[in-house]
């Protein structure tokens, strides 16, 4: 083998897991685990003491300094070292944050040998790598985001019951009448109505009627 091995550091407070990772790469021809760290506090010092480090496998949930903080510190101080997050959390906000701070990939801990190998190699080659379910989580979150930013009234979901109440308000029924007609309490009618008003951005029943009619909501 003429190629030098990829130098990897594993940061995880769960010793058994670290040993597992070490074990599967112990006879690898491409990858070498050169250092393992269990405490967030020791990470920066260890990097300093480990020359030629290529990749850090970094857990998020760590004692003292967590993975999110560490990602920020490392990518600032050692931009050449690639960071691959290896975490239990499949959580859109975490994923977004670490990627923003400079991590190159995100792999869930229930990964297998093959995936982990792929991840390390593609991150080393300068690409980004995410587990499939991480990709899924991020896609969902982006879809959600674009939906949330849409302030169009037509995008607001109005429940069946709210629609019923809206149409009765348009027909000029009083709250008490509506309550009687739908067999619900007056209070609930008022709740629905104030929800509707917030939802459609109006301040009174007249506004409700106007917006409802303008947008064909009922």
């Amino acid at each position, binding site marked *: 083998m003429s190629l030098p091995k990829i130098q990897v550091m594993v940061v*995880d407070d769960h010793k058994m897991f670290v040993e597992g990772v070490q074990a599967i790469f112990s006879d690898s021809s491409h990858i070498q685990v050169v250092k393992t760290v269990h405490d967030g506090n020791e990470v920066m010092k260890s990097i300093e003491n480990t020359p030629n480090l290529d990749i850090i496998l970094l857990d998020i949930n760590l004692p003292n300094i967590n993975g999110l903080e560490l990602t920020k510190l490392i990518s600032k101080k050692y931009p050449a070292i690639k960071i691959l997050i290896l975490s239990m959390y499949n959580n859109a906000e975490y994923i977004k944050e670490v990627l923003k701070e400079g991590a190159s990939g995100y792999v869930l*801990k229930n990964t297998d040998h093959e995936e982990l190998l792929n991840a390390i190699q593609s991150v080393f080659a300068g690409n980004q790598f995410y587990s499939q379910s991480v990709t899924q989580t991020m896609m969902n979150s982006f879809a959600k985001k674009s939906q949330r930013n849409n302030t169009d009234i037509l995008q607001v979901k109005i429940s069946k019951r709210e629609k019923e109440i809206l149409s009765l308000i348009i027909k000029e029924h009083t709250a008490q009448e509506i309550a009687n007609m739908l067999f619900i309490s007056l209070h609930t009618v008022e709740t629905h109505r104030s929800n509707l008003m917030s939802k459609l951005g109006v301040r009174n029943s007249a506004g409700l009627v106007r917006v409802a009619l303008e947008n064909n909501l009922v």
Partner: protein
Amino acid sequence: MRDKTHNPLVDARLHLLWIIALSVFFFLSKSPISIAQTDSTKVNTSVKNLLYHALKEASKTNNNELIAEIYQRLGAYYESESRQDSAINFYQKSTTLFKSLGKELLYHDLLVRLGILNDQVFNYKFAISYLKEATSYYKKNKMYLPYVKAMNQLGEVYSHIDDDVNARQCFIATLEVNNNILKDTHLIIENKILIIQNDIKTDNLDRALSLAMHNNKVAQRFGNESMLAKTEYQLGVLYFKMQNLDKAKDYLEQAEPHFLKNEDYISLQSLYKLLTQSYIELGKKDSIKPTLDKYFAVVDKIKNTEIVKSSQEIAQKFDSEKKDEVIQQLENENELKTINSRQQKTIIYILIFSFIASILVVYLIYNNYINRLKTNQIIAQQQSELRDKQLKQVEQESQIKAMESMLMGQEAERNRIGKELHDSLGATLSTIKLQMSSSPGNDHPEGHSMKKAKEMIDEACEEVRKISRDMMPITLTKYGLHTALEELIDKYNFEGGPNVIYQAFGIIQHDNKDLDLFTYRIIQELVNNCIKHAQAQEIIVQINYLEDLMIITVEDDGNGFDFENTQYQGMGLKNVEYRAQYLKGKFSVESSPGVGTIMVVEIPINKNHQPNQSSSFA
């Protein structure tokens, strides 16, 4: 948040008010001058106030006819107060409404009033156009009496602008109708007086004289004193103009006692003036002085009346500043009673009046009685409620203390378990999987069961992740309630089952960590509950922040349940109730089979006490 509803009681009250206003008005317009002036002014003001009040009430309804009628009454009121501008204004409003309502007759009658008033304020152009419209309407509909009156009025307006030709035409047209159709002697005499006036003005003195003589004869035969006086006076004027002073003097002297009897001071004023001039020119020195004295006496009398009238107006203006007070007084019927007692001369009016007053009294007493009954009830209710409330509050406070430690304990325990699961069990499972995937047995015939085992470990990992997330919502502490809820809802949707939608409106930032945590827990419980029991297609979760209130609603379109009659209150909903109570909020469920369920939690935001943070969340 209350709707303005159409209340039959309001209508009834309105009508009653209306009746009172009308009656008082009627009473006033017919009442003799003997009412003490101040009282009359007060009542006048009250009429106005009542009318305005009636107008206000009527405007709330859409009863245009009633509104038009009130406008008309207001116009009439101002007319009676000689405030022509206001009268014209209200009459105009009224005509517009009557016209749109298709009340032709009322409309045209009002046009006549408008004509007269505009004439008085020198708006002759308007006066003419109003009166023309009215006369042509009356003529078309063969309404001769109003036609005659309006036509004469029109003629008078024409004379005021010295358009004597048109004026004469009007009077002649009236005379035709009078002679041929109405045949009312009184009207005919009056009509002829107008024509004679017109002739005198245009110097057609001969024609005037023959008509005046004739007219005087008719009046004599007819025996009406005021008519007789007028015709005699007119003859006097005519002879004076013809310089036949003796005859002028005779007729004027004849007319004098008749005018006196009718208390027609205005006419007397001109009569004495003319008579004095006649005496002077005839050289009857003895008669000059007494006639002049009489003239000044009459002028004084007229002036006095004017002074009284203007002082009345001033008093009324002063009173209108105390408008509300007077309304109050009138409604308390004391006012009406005092006036009533002074009305001793005219028993019939007292009777009418006391009848109205008694209706008012009965109504007010009844109203008062009902109100007092209600008030008492409310007070009693409030008192017992207050007592209950106080008791409850004491109970609640101790409950809240207990609840606080329970909830905080629960939270801490969940946190611990979540962390434990996540950190040790999760990591262990991950390690096992990693080891298996790297074992050489991968291509072994046993590979199939190996693969199966790996899948099972994946499932176990996922399960651990889920449980720990439920136990310890890290997104919540780090990224806030709404991100955490979005994530929670996403997971629900990802797992299949009903479609869950989450919406938040008017988000208010606050520092109460407990509020966010418990809100999250509440929604978690409620949605779990729906998923488990409701068999819904869709669940809608909403948080609506009002000024000082947060409303959480969870709606589903599932099969619903009978909340009262089932032992549905499992641990989940009980927990929601505890948390809501702890946050001083309310939790309610409304469900009926087949319709779906709506669960509402309302939590006050500002009033929320900051629970002590001693309980740790390690």
